């Protein structure tokens, strides 16, 4: 739910990183946090377990430069990947403006990708939303693992609708910015055309 504040001249948008557990959602926003200049980013907030698994969410605010006197802010959130944290995943989706689905390319995690994608559909339905209505980008992460499934197969199984998608190796930063740029631009375009 984008918010335009005409008084403080700000536009705020919410981006949620979704996907299976240990797929690299947190790694994506950690990379963004590490690479951006201090004046463009806020504090990285992580609500994680002792094992560094996301318990509730990670949160990173980003700020673009002023255009026509308006500042545009993107608030990045990740959701916990594990199935038993579904209640948390659902509530982070409230008011979402754009979604990045981080899929794990590893063959061993293929079913987990499908489960997470179906779960995303189900959770959006509870807010009367569907993926056709909101900006959506997919990232095939962990392209460097030995048992990586070919991208063509991932697309066939997980992205028959043909949403924009990128290959990624989030730990090395590969594809991280491309994915985020793509979803951010889609959000802006949707704001303009809504």
């Amino acid at each position, binding site marked *: *739910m*984008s*918010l*335009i*504040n*005409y*008084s*403080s001249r700000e*536009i*705020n948008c*919410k981006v949620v990183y979704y996907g299976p557990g240990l797929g690299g959602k947190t790694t994506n926003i950690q990379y963004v946090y590490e690479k*951006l200049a201090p004046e*463009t980013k*806020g*504090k990285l*907030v992580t609500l994680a377990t002792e094992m560094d698994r996301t318990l*509730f*969410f990670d*949160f990173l*605010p*980003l700020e*673009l*430069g002023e*255009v*026509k*006197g*308006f500042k*545009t*802010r993107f*608030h990045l*959130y990740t959701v916990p990947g594990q199935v038993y944290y579904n*209640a*948390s995943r*659902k*509530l*982070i989706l*409230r*008011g*979402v403006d754009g979604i990045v689905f981080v899929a794990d390319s590893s063959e061993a995690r293929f079913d987990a990708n499908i489960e997470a994608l179906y779960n995303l559909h189900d959770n959006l339905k509870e807010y009367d939303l569907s993926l056709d209505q909101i900006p959506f980008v997919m990232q095939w992460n962990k392209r460097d693992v030995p048992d990586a499934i070919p991208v063509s197969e991932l697309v066939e199984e997980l992205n028959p609708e043909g949403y924009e998608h990128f290959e990624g190796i989030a730990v090395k*930063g590969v594809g991280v*910015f491309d994915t*985020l*740029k793509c979803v*951010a*631009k889609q959000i*802006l*375009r949707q*704001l*303009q055309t*809504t």
Partner: protein
Amino acid sequence: MVRAEWAIFEEDFWAINNVLEDLRKSSKAGNVMLIDRTGQLVSHCGPDVGFDLTSFASLCAADFEANYQLARLIGEKDFSTLYHQGAKDSMFLGKIAKGVVLVVLFDKSTTLGLVRLRVRHAVAELDKIIEGLYDKLEYRNEEYDTFDETFTREVEAEIDSLFAD
């Protein structure tokens, strides 16, 4: 033409700020904030808090949302207020129309009773403003032509420069 799902117009912003400032003074609280349900800070009244307000707003919204889900689990419609008590500072959160959340930070110089009483009055006023604001969105969005194609292109250029590898 940009059509946000919700927007704060200048006059509503000041109306909100007046209610927040009145609440802050009458309840003798330190800081008063209005946050939308997605965790975005709408307005803040009071001295510099000395911590990251953006993170604070996002955590408050998550706190309220988690408690909303808890309420549903036990068969309640929602919890309209939340109270977090600290040794020195405490927080009182109240639900406003359209999922907006009012947050009051206060210390020992006031009491929970006074804060709760004043919040009740403020919630009623803020409800009216927020409801009116949503009605206005039906037509006021179109008055603003700042966000045209050029604007989108310029923001896209900003995105490219921010995320330049």
